């Protein structure tokens, strides 16, 4: 029930700290959670992707993550430096359904926080939980090494419970993935992100 009650808490917080205050709260919570989870090291992408598939990585805390191993990300030399990952169901969707079941409608606070984030931070959120989520993944990626290199996370696309989709043009260009390919993935997945070796010379950065 605490997940459904969270909406009331956010309403309270908006009154006291404003939507921008709630965004800051969520981001700090993302930092804290990532900081409290241990470091992980993998020999290479193969072992990391197997660990993701078997739900052994820190990223698996969110729910079932699918490594899209047919969608590799390459650097300027053509070496594989990362992959796309996707979640079939956003981890906040059960809470949205539970709220609609128990209360009947989503709190306007959810939309207020989402809009604040989209306008001032990154236009990718489809619910207030995305705010926490994006920061958490970015921070947790720093604690995971593949072949000795820490990772970086780029949130690429999201699909909300109402069917609304968001694609981060900036991040899609940076990892050099065709936007249409990402859009196609949203038919089957609700959240798509890229994990790449931190510091890799991505084609999109040239």
């Amino acid at each position, binding site marked *: 029930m*605490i*997940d459904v009650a969270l909406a009331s*808490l956010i309403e309270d917080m908006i009154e006291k700290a404003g939507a921008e205050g709630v965004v800051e709260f969520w981001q700090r919570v993302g930092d804290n959670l990532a900081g409290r989870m241990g470091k992980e090291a993998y020999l290479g992408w193969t072992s990391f992707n197997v660990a993701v598939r078997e739900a052994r990585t820190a990223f698996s805390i969110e*729910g079932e993550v699918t490594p899209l191993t047919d969608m590799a990300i390459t650097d300027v030399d053509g070496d594989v430096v990362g992959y796309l990952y996707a979640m079939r169901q956003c981890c906040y969707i059960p809470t949205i359904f539970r709220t609609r079941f128990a209360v*009947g409608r989503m709190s306007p606070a959810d939309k207020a926080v989402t809009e604040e984030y989209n306008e001032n931070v990154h236009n990718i959120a489809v619910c207030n*939980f995305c705010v926490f989520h994006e920061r958490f993944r970015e921070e947790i990626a720093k604690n995971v090494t593949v072949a000795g290199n820490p990772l970086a996370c780029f949130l690429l696309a999201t699909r909300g419970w109402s069917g609304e989709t968001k694609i981060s043009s900036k991040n899609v260009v940076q990892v050099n993935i065709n936007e249409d390919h990402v859009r196609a993935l949203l038919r089957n997945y609700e959240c798509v992100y890229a994990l790449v070796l931190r510091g890799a010379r991505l084609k999109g950065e040239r």
Partner: protein
Amino acid sequence: MPSDSRMQDSNPFVEIATHLFLEDLAGKVGVAGLNNYLVSLAKNLAAAMPREEYSSWSEFIGAVRDSQSILSTFEEVRPVTERCMSTLRSPFERGWREYAKRVGSFAPVHREVADYYNHKVRPTAVTSVHIVLHTFREAAALYTQGKYAEALPLLRKAQEDGLKDGSLLYQLGYCREVVEGKHLTRDLGGRASTEEMGDAITAAVMQ
């Protein structure tokens, strides 16, 4: 009632995030402030839910048992007797397990705010989220109207939360002794201490 009529489970990750949200909030407003937030949000949640009316006590008990009452929206409630309900599992169990597995030991603030609540309000909380649960049950009962005279006061007045065999066993007890007004704490309109009310509830449940 078939199980598919129940609300689907939450993703435990959201519950973990909420626990961390509360920890962060406690850093800003302190234990007393967090207690106030939790009480307030539970009341708001109950107020946002649909009101109910039952024509008889047995109809009400049936709705609770079949997960059709707001009192059994978030937890499976089983009547032990006509007047005593129990829940076999905490609604927070999955979130706690995932928290312990992925994050580690709980931040002390969850216990501290429960201690504050137990001292100031009534001795029924084990962790911070029980404040939400117990306040919600009480507030939800206010929205459960019954033509049957006993329904409302019985629901409103008594709650019990116990520890057995080293594992948490959550019991919601609607105890005659408490609702008759002999052992109510000041927030419920009586003059008893929290210990006296706790002892009365325990005695009633053990009968």
